[in-house]
């Protein structure tokens, strides 16, 4: 192999599909058939996963912290609600895209505020924008329904063929399809030179500019794209629950999102997916044991994760499986710690 093709081979190392990834998606798909009574919670997890993936794009890859990501979720949610309620765009998939674009426009407009300044400024600006939108949604109750939210949303069948059923089956597979397609797109983007340049900017903006990367333009681009993702997640929320209320903008939603991403791990796309599953599971388990104090236990888990470090946790969890693989197949561990965590 020549040096150049060798380089090409190694450069694409991370972009290649691993068996673990294929297995992951097959398991997710299998869940849709294995637990027909749990569609609602599973749909909820998928939405959260998509929403978290959006935060991962800006935080995990580009290093933009946000405490107001619910702003885009909320705009997507209300946009989808209004489109369906007034029959402007009846077909759900089309409405989903339009709602995502609405959030994207907001993302583009506010990106100019966010890319300025340091982490603290960004936290405050993003938080402020979300609060602002929440207040606006409350003020213009003639459009948004105010504290009552949008009521009486009736969803049309997907592609005019598949109706949303009361068990949430259609909603689940619809959400899964949207999540998977957007995941494929994000996966492609993060392994492109553009995606690599984001990681470079996160690592060292000074050097990034010194090799000719237009830092601000790249940050605006990814922030806008992430806003689209969050908007689509919000629209999915409205479409699968048929409600949109003020809490789509709530600060808790943005803050929870950060927890989910930290639990799942940043900068490898699966963090959002894994984090969403673990977060909702923990919520279920803890709220069954102690309905009042489940947040205490979530907090404890978070502190443990941050203190011990995810890398070590991964190693502990994967110790036995990797040992078995090594013994049986006599080769290196299949599942490795994502590089950005090392």
């Amino acid at each position, binding site marked *: 192999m020549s040096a*150049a093709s060798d380089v090409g081979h190694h450069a694409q190392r991370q972009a290649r599909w691993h068996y673990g990834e294929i297995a992951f998606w097959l398991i997710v798909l299998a869940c849709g058939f294995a637990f027909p009574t749990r569609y609602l919670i599973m749909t909820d997890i998928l939405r959260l996963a998509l929403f978290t993936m959006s935060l991962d794009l800006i935080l995990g890859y580009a290093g933009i912290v946000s405490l107001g990501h619910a702003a885009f979720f909320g705009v997507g949610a209300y946009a989808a609600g209004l489109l369906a309620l007034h029959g402007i765009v009846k077909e759900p998939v089309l409405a989903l895209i339009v709602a995502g674009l609405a959030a994207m426009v907001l993302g583009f407009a506010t990106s100019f505020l966010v890319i300025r300044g340091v982490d603290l400024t960004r936290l405050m600006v993003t938080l402020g924008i979300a609060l602002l939108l929440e207040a606006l949604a409350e003020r213009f109750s003639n459009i948004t329904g105010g504290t009552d939210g949008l009521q009486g949303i009736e969803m049309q069948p997907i592609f005019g063929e598949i109706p949303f059923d009361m068990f949430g089956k259609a909603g689940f597979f619809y959400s899964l399809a949207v999540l998977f397609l957007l995941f494929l797109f994000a996966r492609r983007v993060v392994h492109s030179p*553009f995606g690599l*340049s984001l*990681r470079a900017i996160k690592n060292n903006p000074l050097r990034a500019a*010194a090799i000719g990367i237009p830092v601000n333009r790249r940050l605006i681009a990814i922030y806008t794209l992430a806003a689209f993702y969050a908007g689509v997640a919000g629209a999915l929320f409205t479409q699968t629950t048929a409600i949109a209320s003020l809490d789509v903008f709530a600060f808790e939603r943005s803050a929870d999102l950060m927890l989910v991403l930290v639990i799942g791990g940043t900068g490898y796309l699966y963090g959002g997916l894994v984090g969403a599953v673990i977060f909702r599971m923990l919520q279920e388990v803890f709220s069954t044991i102690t309905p009042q104090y489940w947040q205490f236990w979530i907090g404890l888990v978070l502190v443990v994760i941050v203190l011990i470090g995810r890398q070590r946790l991964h190693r502990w969890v994967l110790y036995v499986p990797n040992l078995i693989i090594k013994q049986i197949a006599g080769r290196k561990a299949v599942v490795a710690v994502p590089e*950005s965590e090392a």
Partner: protein
Amino acid sequence: MTIALETQNLEKQFGGLRVTRDLSLKIEQGARHALIGPNGAGKTTVINQLTGVLKPNSGRILLEGQDITDLPVHKRVLRGLSRTFQINQLYPDLTPLETIGLAVSERLGHGGDWWRRMGTRSDVNGEIADLLSRFHLLDVMNEQTVTLPYGKQRLLEIAVAIAAKPRVLLLDEPAAGVPESERHDILAVVGSLPRDVTVLLIEHDMDLVFSFADRISVLVSGALLTEGPPEQVARDPQVKAVYLGEEAVNV
């Protein structure tokens, strides 16, 4: 003679402190020009203004005759002005392969590609392979930069600057902090830069300066003290006075 890089009456103040005083430099095309001066003379401040990290209070900077005073950092790079940093500025989480690959991609205008995967352009791959082997980084190309020994990181720092294919290269103390055993690699790399690349070297190490430079400017307290060929600068009594007690000047 053509002037590759020029400053005209450059002036920079931090509060009341004048760190660059009326500095006018001319660096000829293909030159091996060294900028020396005692600690705190403002050498790095000059570099930061040349590359656009800092904005001068007044004065102009010309790259190949064109005013670049108001251009942002990344645009100067695309115009052919590239630099290394005195303290390594690398991407700790990225590998040398990714670091170089990104620099090459940006120069060739593929940096904004968001659909095509890294590693699928053969022209980019060829250049990456060439740079990695020239800078002795092939064997560590998949290691995270943060785990590399300092000497390798230093080589990567220079390789990234070269990957931008500069016509003017600013080297800010390239051998700083490199252990004696790895010094040779750095010096060899610096010495073998193509002649059509104009080099401005900022350096403390007088052996390196006098073996490398064909012209030397001496900066003291932000102002130009003297300028000339190495022999002349070495004999200059003012320069000797400045360096007396700090470093002996040997030719």
